[in-house]
């Protein structure tokens, strides 16, 4: 156990974690030619397409240190984007130390700090690593100064490296061995292993990723999942190499995987403790903090028949993405679905994309919203993240919404355009910081709700792609909110209701009505589209009925063709949603989100 080191690489996005992981891997094991590529641990297609890490990844590296001893280094590469911070916090629960990377050209950034706090919470040894020292604009003294001032760490303890050029890699490895303590715990105690991740495999059942704190486990043992009390017989345990490497056993201090034919998806809970059925531990490990989602949206299967398949996919998906929160939801228009909570917009996008790619689920997603707070006249407070649960307006005393502090870095010439955008989005409290000549960092306090829909796209378009955008939540502020309903021929389309600021309600209502007018095909009857607050209509559009639609001739041969057309329509009908007498194509629910091409 003295020869084990468990550590994570943490940093702000793009500071080079995955690239450093590549160097550490190459310095310790032979990587076959076909596997050699940049950011080797980013194995998901989505990660490669977007050039970011989405999921934490573990690999065990054998390393013979300067002291002549062989060590097993369990490296966990983590994502840097704030939306995936739950991946980081779970990874840290398996570690005794971290490499805290700082990009020498960017310095300390929001997630550097946030991730440092996470590491401190877990009482971990922290090794600051200054990366990208090869860059001409690398500012080592400046970065050291930030490490001292902003992180409160000893700048002289920082290791200098260039992950890209392979400079300082041995120093990093030696620092891991010398400065991160070996795991504590005892192989003789009853087994206590923390499930920090999992993946469903249709052949082998759930493959769980574990950190063993006490005891040991081998194939043939009967394990018990402590929270669900389910028991299974272990089929295989092993370590994470470039692929899974089966081993004879896993012991206290190690990080590895376990396969026990766990076919019941719900038996596995991320954060649960595994023990042995014959000799159970007295108490489980503390597990993980609950995730606090900030962006909410409902998802529905395209066809109602697919609800069970969606439920099944979500359950399996959640094994591999513990930061997704969901519960049942239902809508008169869309049927049975789920209300989901996400850690941010990118997370929302990734969930949608992964459900499609990995589980073949095509979804209808409603307009994303945030969680609002209400103080009612009777003094109680209420958190509402689903417009369907909007309280009775006469009972509302005060409404509050979450704000963020946005940091927008742009070339100076775009300041005017970006300020205009922020004002439109109810931004307040602007600050300017000049990080370098010609560049400006603009800070604004913005309602989160204004940012989650097409803010980033707008920003990119007004800055011609030069704007970078980052944000942190800064808490709730009072706000004048209303519930906007959309009606078709007088019937509410519940899935299109949203909570908006009073001043923005009309604009939204007009936008949604216009978009629906474009998306809903003409029908046999006239369709009135209305946006309303309470009973008051604030926007309307009309779709006129068909007036002439009939082919001139219909004789022998035309009948089959016409009938087939009808049969196809009947098939397609499953994908259409009905509100009262109006059929709405699913595309309409997606279209209300899209910005109009101006």
């Amino acid at each position: 156990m003295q020869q084990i080191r468990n550590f994570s690489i943490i940093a702000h996005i793009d500071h080079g974690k995955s690239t450093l992981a590549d160097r550490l891997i190459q310095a310790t094991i032979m990587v076959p030619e076909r596997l050699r590529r940049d950011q080797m641990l980013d194995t998901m297609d989505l990660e490669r397409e977007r050039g970011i890490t989405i999921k934490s990844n573990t690999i065990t590296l054998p390393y013979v240190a300067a002291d002549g001893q062989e060590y097993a280094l369990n490296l966990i590469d983590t994502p840097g984007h704030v939306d995936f911070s739950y991946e980081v916090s779970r990874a840290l629960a398996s570690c005794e130390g971290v490499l805290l990377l700082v990009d020498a050209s960017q310095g300390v950034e929001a997630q550097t700090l946030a991730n440092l706090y996470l590491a401190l919470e877990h009482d971990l040894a922290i090794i600051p690593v200054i990366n990208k020292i090869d860059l001409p604009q690398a500012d080592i003294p400046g970065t050291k100064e930030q490490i001292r001032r902003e992180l409160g760490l000893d700048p002289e303890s920082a290791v200098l490296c260039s992950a890209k050029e392979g400079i300082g890699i041995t120093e990093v490895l030696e620092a891991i061995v010398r400065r991160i303590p070996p795991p504590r715990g005892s192989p003789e105690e009853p087994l206590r292993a923390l499930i920090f991740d999992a993946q469903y495999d249709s052949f082998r059942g759930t493959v769980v990723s574990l950190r063993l704190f006490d005891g040991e486990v081998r194939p043939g043992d009967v394990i018990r999942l402590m929270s669900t009390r389910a028991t299974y017989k272990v089929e295989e345990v092993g370590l994470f190499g470039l692929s899974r490497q089966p081993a004879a056993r896993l012991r206290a201090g190690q990080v590895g995987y376990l396969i026990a034919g766990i076919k019941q998806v719900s038996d596995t809970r991320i954060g649960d403790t595994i023990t042995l059925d014959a000799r159970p531990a007295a108490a489980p490990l503390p597990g993980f903090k609950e995730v606090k989602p900030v962006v909410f949206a409902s998802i529905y299967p395209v066809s109602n028949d697919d609800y069970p398949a969606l439920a099944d996919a979500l359950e399996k998906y959640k094994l591999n993405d513990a930061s997704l929160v969901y519960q049942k939801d239902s809508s008169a228009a869309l049927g049975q679905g789920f209300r989901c909570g996400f850690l941010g917009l990118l997370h929302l996008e990734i969930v949608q994309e992964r459900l499609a790619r990995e589980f073949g689920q095509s979804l209808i997603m409603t307009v994303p919203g945030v969680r609002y707070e209400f103080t009612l006249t009777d003094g109680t407070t209420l958190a509402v993240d689903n417009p369907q649960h909007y309280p009775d307006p006469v009972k509302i005393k005060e409404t509050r919404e979450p704000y963020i502090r946005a940091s927008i870095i742009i070339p100076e010439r775009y300041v005017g355009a970006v300020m205009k955008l922020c004002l439109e989005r109810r931004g307040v409290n602007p600050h300017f910081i000049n990080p370098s000549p010609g560049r400006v960092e603009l800070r604004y306090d913005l309602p989160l709700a204004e940012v989650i829909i097409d803010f980033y796209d707008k920003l990119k378009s007004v800055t011609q792609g030069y704007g970078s955008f980052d944000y942190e939540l800064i808490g709730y502020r009072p706000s004048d909110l209303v519930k906007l309903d959309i009606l078709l021929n007088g019937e509410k389309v519940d899935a299109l209701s949203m909570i908006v600021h009073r001043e923005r309600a009309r604009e939204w209502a007009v936008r949604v009505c216009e978009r629906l007018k474009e998306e809903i095909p003409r029908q046999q009857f006239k369709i009135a589209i209305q946006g309303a607050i309470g009973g008051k209509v604030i926007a309307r559009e009309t779709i006129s009925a068909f007036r002439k639609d009939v082919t001139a001739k219909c004789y022998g041969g035309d009948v089959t063709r016409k009938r087939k057309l009808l049969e196809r329509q009947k098939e397609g009908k499953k994908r259409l949603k009905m509100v009262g007498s109006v059929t709405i194509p699913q595309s309409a629910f997606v279209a209300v989100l899209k910005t109009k091409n101006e």
Partner: protein
Amino acid sequence: MSEGNTEKEKEGAQGPAPGLYVHVPFCRGKCPYCGFHSSTDLTLVPPWLAALEEEAGRYREAFPAFDTLYLGGGTPSLLSLGDLERLLAFVRRLFAFAPGSEITLEANPDDLTPDKLRGYRELGITRLSLGVQSLEDRELRFLGRRHTAAQAEWALNAALTAGFAAVAVDLIYGLPGQSLLTWESTLNRLLAYRPQHLSCYQLTAEAGTILMARLEQGEFALPGEEDGLAFFLFTSEFLGDQGYCHYEVSNFARGQENISRHNRKYWQHVPYLGLGPAAHSFAEGRRWWNQADLTAYLKALARGETPVAGREVLTPEQLRLEALLLGFRTRFGVEVGLLLAAPNGQENLARLRETGLVELSDGLAIPTREGLAVADRLPELFLE
């Protein structure tokens, strides 16, 4: 129905009598708006007649007595009286016809002569369907027709005095540049002859036609939805005032007794047998159709094979869908029970009545004028 099985067909004898259609796949030239398969090679008439006889033989005794015969095309009037006589002879030899059967022949004005008309009468043709299309020379040229307005009027007059039980006239409206006024004047001139039956088709550019190609080139434009509707409603009202009942989207009869007995079978799922290339047949919930191409049709029969190119057995639901799509195109309507079988049937039927697209009578949902104008959109309200 495949050839030669009989047991079930005999039950059909209790229902309305079936109809017989014979497709004459020859034309003098190709009209630019026409999507039909037709040949201009008249040397193929004798082999076609032979093949037809061969095909007819295969259905001998498969159907009870027909009460209509429809010679359609193509251009049946291109056939010489001799060829026509031969055709009718074997048809009458192979099949039984009820007394008083309706025997229709489609004719183009440019083919008609007094002799031919007399011949048709002698051969027992009871109904002549004249492809007049327009009484404006400019429009006839646009349509690529090979007759003039004067020829058409001569043919009309001659046909009406030749002693047919009924003369039907085909017209096309909604041509580029046509106004309601010019259309009204065409109708007025035509109505002076008081034909028993009128088909007024709105011009449509069908895929693969020369008309479509020219439309896509932007050479002209066809009326949009609103104008199309104006033409449609005007035609219906105008002819209604003149005593013609609008009984199908494009068909008008001077009194119920002049409704095309044969075409009505298509719209009401009454059995019919179609002979010749591209002909469709329907009986006992089954439909089948022949090779559309004349050469393929001839080849199949020459080899002693069936010319049938495809067939389908309709499920009860398919029959229901067809009853909807056919019924909403005619004033014969749809049985309300078929509509209520759909999940929102009751509701949608009520809305169709409220909006004046459909009226109820004797357990039938009958499309109004406005309803006929959107007939293609009505069945989809009653899908299961």
